[in-house]
């Protein structure tokens, strides 16, 4: 059964239509990599899935939580959007850790505020998650005291703390120095192996080859083609895909 279902998703900024009717179905434990040139709408698609951008039109269902877009911003609808967000982890390019909280406090924040978990339980959970991303010894460090790669791993742990049904990554390694990219990708790979459903916007081709069950190529607000990484990288059907790949390679 599909865990994410997107129908006819459209998003316009003023007169500029960035997403021109996206249909997308993602099954449980699937790892989907979205690629495409800048301005193709891949980040906007991801942000729409979490309602960080309000879609102009379309329906988004994640698990059993469905939000029809374009409705009035009343409290019932706000609650629907919050319920949907609670079940999706979002990892930002710029990490967006809370700088005034330590690593472990960053991870504890969600369980305490969103799930009402007791502080001591949240601490045990957070400690376990930080250990899982290889930062068990950095619990009491502030974000400013961590490297970019470490910050991004804390951010992943922070999202995992809410036990999401799906993880969304918006160019998670684009702000990192090259030597720090690997440690973040390794954490994402480990999650893939555990069966976490993930959508990843990235330019890391070798990573996509490694973990992606499906690669989606987007351009100018539409999905141009999709398939296994082999199908897309080795024998792309569309001219636009070929052009993009020749530049990226």
């Amino acid at each position: 059964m599909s865990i994410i279902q997107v129908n006819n998703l459209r998003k316009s900024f003023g007169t500029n239509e960035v997403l021109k009717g996206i249909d997308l179905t993602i099954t449980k434990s699937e790892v989907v990599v979205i690629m495409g040139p800048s301005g193709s709408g891949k980040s906007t698609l991801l942000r729409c899935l979490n309602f960080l951008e309000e879609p102009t039109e379309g329906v988004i269902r994640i698990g059993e939580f469905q939000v029809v877009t374009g409705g009035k911003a009343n409290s019932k609808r706000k609650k629907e959007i919050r319920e949907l967000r609670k079940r999706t982890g979002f990892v930002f390019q710029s990490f967006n850790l809370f700088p005034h909280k330590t690593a472990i406090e960053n991870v504890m924040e969600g369980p305490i505020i969103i799930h009402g978990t007791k502080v001591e339980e949240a601490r045990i959970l957070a400690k376990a998650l930080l250990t899982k991303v290889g930062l068990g010894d950095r619990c009491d460090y502030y974000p400013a005291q961590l490297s970019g790669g470490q910050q991004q791993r804390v951010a992943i742990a922070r999202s995992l703390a809410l036990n999401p049904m799906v993880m969304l990554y918006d160019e998670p390694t684009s702000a990192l120095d090259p030597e720090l990219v690997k440690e973040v990708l390794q954490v994402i790979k480990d999650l893939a192996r555990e069966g976490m459903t993930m959508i990843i916007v990235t330019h890391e081709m070798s990573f996509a080859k490694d973990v992606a069950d499906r690669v989606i190529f987007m351009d100018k607000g539409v999905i141009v083609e999709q398939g296994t990484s082999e199908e897309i990288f080795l024998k792309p059907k569309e001219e636009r895909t070929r052009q993009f790949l020749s530049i990226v390679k």
Partner: protein
Amino acid sequence: MDVTIIIDSLPSLLKATLMTILLAAISIIIALVLGFFAAIVRILKVRILNGIATAYVSIIRGTPLLVQIFVIYYGLPQIGISLDPISSGVVALSLNAGAYLSESFRAAILAVDNGQMEASLSMGMTYSQALRRIILPQSLRIAIPTLSNTFIVLIKDTSLVSVITVTELLQMSSLIIAKTFEPLTIYLLAAAIYWILITFFTTILDKLEVRTSKYLVR
């Protein structure tokens, strides 16, 4: 300069300084609350209140404090609102500082990176949870230097209340001078007391700024 004049007038001056501190302290507390709510109301664009807060800030910042004091003390009794001099002073000083503080708070809240709000919302927090837990603690640190400025101005502005016969530090100085005819000594003494007060206050705020910035140290 006669040392005995200093010794003789110091007790009265210090007593009047207590009035200055009292005026400043009460006004700062009211101004903080007022300024905070005005800032929140404007950031959340709360209907009607947003308009009131915007007009309030504009009027207060666009008119001299002395005129505000006169309107409150001499003007309001004409429409049946009579306040004693001290209350009038507190009202004027609080309203005045509140307007400036609301601008400080607003700027400080808007200065927090938008990614912080996005990260909070993406977890499923409500807007007010995000504001309370994530945005406001960070904006407090950003606001401290401008808060500090407003506090300094407020302490100095208490001297304007002397014109409506509140016996604070400046008013007391003038009274002593009327008896002793030693304006240089007494006014310098008053200036020194203001300077000590303000230095004491800014030192505390500087310490607070260092403390709240601890998490930024690498």
